[in-house]
């Protein structure tokens, strides 16, 4: 069981900034995210794209914003459960919550802050008959451990970065790599495209384009796929593995079943006060919430996170008075023992 003060669901910009604001109030945070890395959409969808409306940054790349936020909150030592999706929430007798992920990891906290953006990113699955019945029996949408494919035959479908990068990587691990894409052109970093060309010329990757996987076959596990090239009869290819890599799309997912009030695919919160949901102790901040006048902007998420932390402080420290302190005046005491503070003025007489 992981214990913390504020359990944050979603490690995007809003979730990451919550760690900082909570830290100022001496509250410890732990974050859960379905993606294997922090940053949410900023790192998954558009890390190389610029953002122009982060205060004081005329321009910052989404990936750089993620790194800056991680750096800013580092001294408050956030914990991370990455690559796991928050699945269930159970209220405990002492008023706290236990949140369990799809992999069974349990987290306990008096406050839950849902900063889930548009939801957890789930792989997009092509519509092929019986595909789902071969999941984990030769069909996978995410590659977790490439060693699984050692000396096996692998078919990858897709035309983006992940399809290219994994085809390159697995060409050294698997006994055979076939890459199937609907077009002859690939969308990805130029050097990945060049590398695939090189491996294709060396016979280490087999390319089938423009084509689509149209059927899967097997009994207890995947044994073959059918690939159809435009205007040609379908071809059956023996393989041990089929990995469709068509990107990820966000789904609100299990959170929708937590008894929260949902409105426009978002969680309704009280914006007059503290962004609390209809369940006391559970807050929703950033793109995942909704209230009159809501704007889905990163900068609004930062504001919501800040007010939410004040409310969390009051719940965790009932009756305790609080006076706002400015970081410039008080400095920052990290949980790791570090201290940041403004340099003291030099007082010296002039003769």
């Amino acid at each position, binding site marked *: 069981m992981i214990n913390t003060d504020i359990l944050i669901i979603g490690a995007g910009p809003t979730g990451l900034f919550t760690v900082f604001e909570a830290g100022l109030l001496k509250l410890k945070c732990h974050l859960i995210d379905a993606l294997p890395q922090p940053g949410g959409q900023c790192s998954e969808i558009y890390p190389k794209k610029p953002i122009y409306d982060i205060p004081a940054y005329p321009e910052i790349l989404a990936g750089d914003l993620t790194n800056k936020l991680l750096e800013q909150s580092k001294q408050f030592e956030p914990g991370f459960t990455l690559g796991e999706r928050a699945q269930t929430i159970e209220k405990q007798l002492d008023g706290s919550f236990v949140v369990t992920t799809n992999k069974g990891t349990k987290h306990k906290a008096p406050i839950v802050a849902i900063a889930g953006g548009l939801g957890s990113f789930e792989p*997009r699955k092509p519509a092929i008959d019986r595909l789902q019945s071969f999941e984990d029996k030769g069909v996978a949408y995410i590659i977790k451990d490439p060693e699984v494919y050692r000396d096996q035959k692998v078919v990858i479908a897709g035309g983006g970065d992940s399809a290219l990068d994994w085809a390159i990587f697995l060409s050294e691990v698997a006994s055979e790599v076939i890459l199937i894409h609907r*077009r002859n052109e690939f969308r990805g970093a130029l050097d990945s495209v060049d590398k695939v060309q090189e491996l294709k010329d060396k016979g280490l990757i087999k390319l089938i384009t423009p084509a689509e996987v149209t059927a899967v076959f097997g009994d207890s596990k995947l044994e073959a796929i059918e690939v159809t090239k435009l205007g040609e009869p379908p071809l059956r290819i023996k393989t041990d593995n089929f990995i469709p890599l068509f990107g990820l799309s966000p789904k609100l997912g299990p959170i929708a079943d937590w008894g929260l009030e949902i409105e426009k695919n978002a969680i309704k919160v009280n914006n007059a006060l503290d962004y609390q949901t209809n369940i006391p102790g559970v807050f929703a901040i950033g793109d995942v919430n909704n209230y009159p006048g809501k704007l889905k902007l990163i900068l609004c998420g930062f504001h919501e996170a800040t007010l939410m932390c004040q409310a969390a402080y009051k719940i965790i420290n009932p009756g305790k008075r609080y006076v706002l302190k400015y970081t410039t005046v008080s400095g920052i005491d990290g949980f790791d023992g570090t201290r940041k503070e403004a340099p003291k003025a030099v007082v010296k007489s002039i003769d």
Partner: protein
Amino acid sequence: MTQDIHIQIIDRDGTPHNVQAPTDMALNLMEVVRLFELAPEGTIGICGGMAMCASCQCYVQSNHKLTEKLDDEHAMLSEAFNVKPTSRLGCQIQISPELEGLKIELAPED
């Protein structure tokens, strides 16, 4: 004074909606769909309009001459599902007076 244009948008349930879209707000077609709430929030324009998801895919049913697809859109449509020859990404179609009478159908959600 710029004129609004008339667009028919068939939603994912097959219901047609006739809307008037302003041409002076630098809107794209995906944003028009959101403006009139013709698809639930969170199911359209997920990437914000960068041609990096296909949640705003639509089928163009009228014979309007649209701007050519750029590489981004081509690439995204090559990975999307339910793609037809008439498929476009709504976020890549800017609303302009030439689109008067445009008719489109939203592609199913993935």
